[in-house]
């Protein structure tokens, strides 16, 4: 018995020593690469949102390789430090603290969802590290911290884009489906309803669901009873395909539409026939004939095997914004980079020219994309461009 306690204490001491040793070894190792500019990345690589996270990361990595191949920033190469936040608020906060506290990063890209980006707003202010979220479109995100920027447009614009397009098609009665676990979805539904009502449309039904729900029968039957001709579902690939498939089962005749969260192959290919005729707002169109877009589409298709969507494009554009800001600031000092970032004007990116506002919002245009049947699968089709 006594020797048992002794053995256990020795075991515990050994474990502590091993842990400390590992941390020190790794900590020292990471200081080795002198002269490079480190950029932190926070994306979900596991969990419900992982398809969006890995697509964004592909875009980021592609752009960094491109910049390094062209000689980096004045000869200094970019290196990425990637953290998985699993799409979770607490994980986003600890990932951010880890990147800024341990990783010594100059800037951070991410998190990609509005809810996670809002969660890191306070730590961003405290750490004072310029942070660019590629795709967090909720209105509150960029104003939440002086160091927080975004490469995408915001929801009050995006919701209006979808509403305007729908009204232009002669649709006057719509239903909305909100994902209650997402600030993105909540904010978008609000701005869509405002714009839709203002344009003379009526909202016939407002329903909601939670992340990871798998049964949407009650919501869809409410929508069906309301007789809405259009259903706005600004969701993510985890739930949207299930919603569309179940809508087909229920025999819902309405057209579905979404926002930039739909610009991902997982939604376009996995939702079944109900998605034909649906439309959504996105950051860019692969049909855009500008050279930068065509090069991007060719390179990304070769890289990942699928045509890139908004997530890949905005990941790449976030890198571009940071690089341009560092170049303009002439240093990697945080406040200088932040100040340079707010003065960026008409930066050439895959998703079109971006001008930063003082709040950290990107002024840029949006496109409306439709979905058509193409052989065995489905394909995106460019419909319209809408300026802010």
């Amino acid at each position, binding site marked *: 018995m006594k020797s048992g*306690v002794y053995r256990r204490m020795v075991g515990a001491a050994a474990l502590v020593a091993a842990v400390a040793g590992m941390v020190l070894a790794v900590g020292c190792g990471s200081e080795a690469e002198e002269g490079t500019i480190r950029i932190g990345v926070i994306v979900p690589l596991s969990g419900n949102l992982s398809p969006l996270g890995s697509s964004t990361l592909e875009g980021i990595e592609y752009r960094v390789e491109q910049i390094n191949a062209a000689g980096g920033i004045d000869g200094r190469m970019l290196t990425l430090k990637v953290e998985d936040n699993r799409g979770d608020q607490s994980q986003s*906060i600890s990932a951010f603290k880890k990147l800024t506290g341990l990783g010594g990063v100059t800037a951070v890209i991410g998190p990609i969802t509005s809810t996670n980006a809002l969660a890191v707003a306070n730590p961003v202010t405290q750490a004072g590290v310029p942070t660019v979220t590629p795709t967090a479109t909720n209105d509150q995100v960029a104003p939440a911290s002086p160091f927080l920027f975004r490469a995408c447009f915001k929801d009050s614009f995006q919701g209006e884009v979808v509403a305007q397009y729908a009204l232009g098609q002669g649709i006057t009665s719509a239903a909305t489906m909100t994902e209650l*676990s997402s600030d993105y979805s909540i904010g978008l539904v609000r701005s869509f309803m405002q714009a839709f009502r203002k344009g003379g449309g009526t909202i016939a039904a407002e329903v909601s669901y939670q992340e990871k729900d798998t049964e949407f029968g009650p919501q869809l039957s409410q929508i069906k009873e309301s007789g809405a001709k259009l259903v706005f579902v600004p969701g993510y690939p985890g739930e949207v395909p299930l919603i569309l498939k179940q809508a087909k089962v229920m025999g819902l005749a309405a057209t579905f539409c979404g926002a930039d969260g739909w610009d991902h192959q997982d939604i376009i290919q996995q939702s079944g026939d109900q998605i034909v005729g649906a439309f959504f707002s996105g950051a860019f169109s692969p049909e855009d004939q500008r050279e930068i877009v065509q090069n991007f589409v060719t390179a990304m298709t070769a890289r990942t095997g699928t045509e890139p969507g908004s997530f890949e494009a905005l990941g790449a554009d976030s890198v571009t914004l940071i690089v341009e800001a560092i170049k303009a600031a002439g240093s990697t000092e945080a406040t200088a980079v932040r100040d340079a970032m707010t003065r960026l004007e008409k930066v050439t990116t895959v998703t079109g020219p971006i001008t930063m506002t003082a709040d950290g919002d990107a002024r840029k245009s949006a496109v409306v994309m439709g979905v058509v049947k193409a052989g065995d699968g489905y394909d995106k089709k460019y419909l319209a461009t809408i300026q802010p």
Partner: protein
Amino acid sequence: MSYYLDILGNIGIFMILAMSLNVICGMTGLLQLGHAGFFALGAYSAGLVSIYWQLPGLGMVNFIPGALAAMLVASLFAVLIGVPCLRLRGDYLAIATLGFGEIVRLSLQNLYFPAPPALLERGVERIGGATGISLPVNAQYGSWWFIWIFVIITYVLLVNLKRSAIGRAFLAIREDEIAARAMGVNLPYYKSLSFVLSAAFAGLAGALYAHKQLTLHPGDFGLLRTIEVLLMVVLGGLGSFSGAALAALLLIGTREALGQIPYIGPNRELFFALLLILMIRFVPNGLFGLKEFDGVARQLARRFKRAREDEPHG
């Protein structure tokens, strides 16, 4: 460095949580699987207090009403759930408390609160629900030393409780309920007391968590959190507060360290799960058994002394 101090703060919060669960699971021997529920109630109470009611210029003093509210709300729910459930035995109590924990999480996920004036101006009508609540920035009291003051207070209070008459009653219930009743221990009273004390300290941990993290969402308070804490209690040795605290340090430290090793880092949860199974398999009685630091130190000292005496002379 700032990152390690931040982790030190997390460890402190988990130490309090583990010590609080040790009161009911370790000392009284009642398996409780709803601990994250009390943690959540504490965090949300403290969070809401500081969202709606904060006295400017008082700084950290503002922590006190929130923390009191947290402990009070958690204890209140402990009474509410404890009175009907504590008659249940063994696995059934575990299942009932598990149900309670899930009810708290699912309810918070669907519960909304009116937005405070500052947010109303920005067009937000309600807070809560699945996206959670955010505390004002100036309500961050997350320094590691601030948390560790409470760790020490909790440790001293609970170790003294263990060595008091109440603590001995708890331990008697754990060893044999029927024998304890025969010896005159008022079972319903002491069981409820243990349950409430455990919940109150979990509420305190919740308040500290709220003021450190600032963003609270129901997903943080799932069954997995309870199980994490239960593991600390078991690894530390059922009934040992020193053990629970040390196990919290070890488990969180190991997980952090795993996260920093290349290749293992992205899949650390996999290795962590494996480690847990092995720990339970090979250290089922925990590091400390029922002892505290002083007991273990005495035992080690005795052992060294004997080892020296056993050495052949010359």
